[in-house]
């Protein structure tokens, strides 16, 4: 029988994650700026942006899907958080993970992507189409090593339940998948780089050049919804990675730390490497990440 208490618990998780996400993304932006010898934004900047954007009113719409784009997007982010157990062993913070296992989480990642692409496409802006085409091409190829890594992990632990996978990694750092199946983790982390929209895989957003890509057409409250998603979604995704490969988190501090460190991987890579073109990144995934995934599968 469904316990109604799960709803406020889930909302509590959501609240914590949103705040953590706002602070952490600002921190990471600041770190990135410092590496580039710039001053960077204040740590509370995200709050200001978000409040401002939610406060703004837009009198523009491009149509039905334009509306739905951010909605899909944020539903994807929020849903993802809710479908994964965040804190291992905690009844309160296991959210709605009873609805589905790992496969649900993995496939639900696409929900937001689909909505985003649809919404931007509705705008009719040609650059949006270019951004979508690039983004979809890249993300589908980045998915491949992840899928193999996940499959390797599922085979290794003979389960698809995230909670069970975390449980199997308890009892010491050497029990983490990171050490029991390093190839799978390597493949997954390469995939992770590709999906974080950071260099060298950020041609989709191309922030330094002409402002192409889906976000161009969104502003005011549309943008606010997407910004909200942008702080939730990576954390939700990293939470999955953490649970599968890095032993999960039994408490919030561990959670905060692990998520931050995993996020930093993409930041480190991002500040060092220049940008790939799309076909280059596809080839990169094929040449480096996919063999890793194969090895990971064979390793099990």
């Amino acid at each position, binding site marked *: 029988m*469904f316990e109604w208490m799960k709803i406020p618990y889930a909302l509590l998780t959501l609240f914590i994650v949103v705040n953590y996400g706002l602070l952490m993304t600002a921190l990471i932006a600041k770190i990135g700026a410092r590496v580039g010898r710039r001053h960077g934004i204040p740590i509370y900047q995200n709050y200001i942006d978000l409040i401002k954007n939610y406060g703004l*009113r*837009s*009198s*523009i719409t491009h*149509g*039905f*899907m334009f509306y*739905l784009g*951010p*909605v*899909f997007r*944020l*539903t994807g982010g*929020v*849903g993802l958080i809710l*479908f994964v157990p965040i804190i291992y062993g905690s009844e309160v913070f296991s959210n709605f993970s*009873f*609805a*589905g*296992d790992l*496969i*649900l989480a993995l*496939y*639900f990642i*696409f*929900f937001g992507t*689909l909505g985003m692409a*649809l919404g931007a*496409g*509705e705008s*009719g802006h*040609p650059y949006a*189409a*270019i951004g*979508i*085409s*690039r983004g*979809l*091409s890249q993300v*589908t*190829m980045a*998915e*491949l090593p992840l899928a*193999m890594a996940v*499959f390797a992990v*599922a*085979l290794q632990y*003979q*389960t*698809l*339940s995230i909670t069970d996978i975390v449980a199997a990694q308890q009892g010491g750092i050497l029990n983490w998948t990171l050490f029991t199946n390093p190839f799978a983790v390597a493949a997954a982390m390469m995939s992770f780089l590709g999906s974080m929209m950071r260099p060298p895989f950020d041609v989709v957003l191309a922030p330094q050049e002409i402002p192409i890509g889906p976000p161009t057409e969104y502003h*005011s*409250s549309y943008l606010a*919804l997407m910004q909200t998603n942008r702080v939730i979604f990576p954390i939700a995704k990293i939470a999955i990675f953490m649970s599968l490969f890095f032993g999960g988190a039994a408490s919030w501090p561990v959670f905060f730390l692990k998520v931050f460190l995993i996020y930093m991987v993409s930041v480190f890579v991002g500040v060092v490497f220049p940008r790939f073109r799309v*076909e280059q990144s*596809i*080839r990169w995934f094929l040449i480096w990440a*996919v063999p890793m995934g194969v090895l990971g*599968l064979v390793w099990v």
Partner: protein
Amino acid sequence: MVSTLFIIAGGLGAAFLLGLLREEWRGFAYGVTLAALAFMSWVAGSWLWAFVFDGAVGVDVFTAGHNPPFAINLRMGLPEAVLVLLVNAMGLMVGVYLKGTLMRLGRRAMAVLLVAVLALCGIILTRDIFNLFVFIELTAISTAGLVLLSADARALGAGFKYLVISQIISILLLVGIIFAYHATGTLNIDGMAEASVALMKGGTLAFFLILMALIVELKPFPANGWALDIYESAHPAFSALFSAAFSAAMLFAVDKVLLIGGEPWPKIATGVGIVTFVGSNLLALSQTNDRRLLGYSSVAQVGLVLTVIGQRAVLGEHYLFVVGGILLAHSVAKAGLFWVSGLVVERQLSAWAVLRQNPFLVFAFATFMALLIGLPPFPGFYAKWELVHALVSEGRLALVVFILFGALLEVGYLFRWFGYIIKREASVESAMSKPVAFLPRKLVVIGVGVVSAWGLGYIWGALSDFANVLQALPVLFALSFLALEGLPAKLKNTLAIVGLVAFFAISYENYNQLQLIFGAIILIGGAVILLASYETHGKRIGFYPSAMLMYAGLAMLIVAEDSFSFFVAWEILTVGSYFLILRGKFSEPHALSYIIFSLGGAFAILAGFALAAGGAPRIPLEALAQVPATLAPWVFILLAIGFMTKTAAIGLHIWLPGAHAEAETDVSPMVSGILLKAGLFGLMVLLLNMGKTQFYGVELTYVLLWIGALSALLGNLMAIFQEDAKRLLAYSSIGQMGYAVFGLAMMNHLGWLMALMFVINHYVYKSMLFLSVGGIAKRTGTRDMYRMGGLIALMPLSFIAVLIGIIAVSGVPPLSGFGGRWIFYNAIMTADARLPMILIFLSGPVAFLYLFRLIHTIFLGQLKDEHRRLKEAPFWIVVPQMIYVVFLLGFAVFPGLALRRVDAFLNPYFPNGGLNWEGLTISSDFGYWSPVSIMITIGVIFATLLAWLVYLNHNAQKVKQFNIVFAAERPYRPETTHFAWNFFAPYRKALGFMVQPFVTQFWDGLTGSLHHTAQFTRKLYTGNGQTYAFHLLAFVVVVYLILVGGLV
């Protein structure tokens, strides 16, 4: 009964009477001719009646009261009666058909016709070998006379070549006869057969000469250039007689004479026959002249019969059934086609498009074509089945391969021709200058041919040991639409829908769970798709018989219990769907490649069943499990190849994109959503019964796993590079079927469950997407996606259908596609093979790409100027889409309604690893999934956010389109600047190597080299009579050398 002699006497007497008549009494002479022919037919018919219904036994007639060798001996038995009736009836029909020509040429021509017919009767009836010679010479003389009937001056040359050949034949025959007589002391064939030891001791060469003379009369390849010239230039009515009656009589003569010989001779017949069959069919590929093509085809068919005659010992009691089936089918079909050719003014194949002016003629052509190829329900079909089974059980596999290969070549050119008829424009000259002379008299003759074709089909069905195809309820229902063709389409549509639903209602109680799923998709699903057909106007001639034939085949397939009924259903659905696909505007080449692949696959299935049967005429499908281990892998491979031609597994897929894309709007979902499932059903039957099979240590299901995975990946990859929306969907079907094959090949509980879920899902969303895209194409007039855009506001319902469809296909939660993926992941957890999974993993996201492109390019982006006033797709096309939308949503929440049953069905086969169904949660050994919770959670979040956003932006204004403009130069090719043209270009750069059309190149290369061989080899026929004579002598010498060399 009237004495047999009256057949000869009647013809001869009438011919003499004609000689006495005055030249001016042509009408009377014509009457005498027809009366004589009718009388002779009646005599033959009364004998046949006596043999069949009164149980009469055969009689021998001796002229002048002596015994052989002093008397001529005629025999009338069942085969003789059939053939004599055939010859005389053919003569009568030709007489009717030739009325104009005969009246013009006068009594002499009529007498020659009579003499020809009676000479043929003589060849059939006589048991005296010298008498045989006389009748053959008489035939040759009358043939040379009848060739002159033609208005074509070239016929003279052909006739002379024929005379040259017949001179040589008569020398061979005479020398052979005298030495045979010398050795045995008798001229009676049966007497010689009794003395055959003596003959064989001293007179091998004598018998060889006799046999060769008769065989050469059968126009063996390559010593047959003269016959082709006659076929090409003679009057078509005469060619009909020449092909149907002459060949039949000569074949019977060979059959008689072979009684004499011993061991090696039947092999010679088979050898010559099969070379002729394959060689002539091959050369026919490059023919453009209709009558010459028919000539090649005649020669080939006669070769086939000769092959079978040589296999008499193998066929045993089925000999007459098989040989008679092929021979009669050939005779009626070829005569019919020659008669039809008399109505067509021009001689190139494409000129036959004029037949479209009269649907009856198209039907007649289709009938004759099916009769010739041996499709059900015609006699050749039963004969082919018996023949292949008998040959395989004797281990004559090479012969089976050659026969089936030759038959496939025949399929190729005949169906190509049919495609011309349906699709080509009749040339201006033939349409305008000479209106086609569709004379009622000729139509009646052709009608008689059609009726006899179907009658033969019925008779052979009744004679066979199997159920008569023409008594199967679904087939009858489908054929009844032929009679209803005059009704308006909407009425026929209602009948069709009612028929499908009613058939489901009466039969679903007898279905098991697996059949129930397929049955529901085929019958109920078919009815839903047919709703879209209300959109069409007029009579829509040809659509309903074809569609219903396909559904009939499908409905029979899922209930088939033995190999024969399975194969019948398979061929019926193949043929029905071919006609259906051919209806598309530009589908001619694609329909052709469809039918060639499908029938090629069907032949593989036939060979597989024959191999499995091991001598039995048919086996229950369950008996596939008991195939001996040495044969099992071969049976598995053959059947799997056959079934995979339907699922369009990679390598055998090239027919699919064109066939599905070019089909009509409501046909695409039928052939994609429903027809492809036939292949899956076949694979299920195969795997359920045969299970895992080793082939030289290779696990065949493992190979299937790879094939499925490759199909999934490459199908999807090819789909993302398509600009044509329907082609995109078609390629996507290849990928989806790859998934399903993959699921089956895993051979575990969940893999099968996934495959079955795919069966349902794929039907729903592919039908829905094809209908949406079809409706859009109907409105926009194009299927190129880059010519569309921004249609979301104009066609919201189509948009919703596509949106729901692509969410479902891509497997994104919460729709039903996710369920499939979830089961899939659980299934592969227990599968043995891991490497093919990688391909499957990749193909999932790739599928997402092409789906997104579909919705994005059509509905989003900029509205095209010319589309500004478009309306929503037609009502009746939208209706089924909305039904599908509702179904998909429902199935997403309650997948258990269908899946639990299947799950239970699979338990006996795969006891382990089933699913647990507890409350709302479905769990496997590895994971769990709660569709309702997912739907509610996502729904709540979605609704909340949407409400909020709407609240925030409640007074937003819609931005007009031209607020955003393109900044680009005017392009040379407009599509290159469209944002969605070559949408996934980087993908192509990175992965394009995987979608190089290697497979297409392979098949193109294969057909190309066949055509080149044909083109090159036919230069052999220089047209010079002396060359032909040389061919003949060389042929005789070569066969003799082979014989002496002991190669046979």
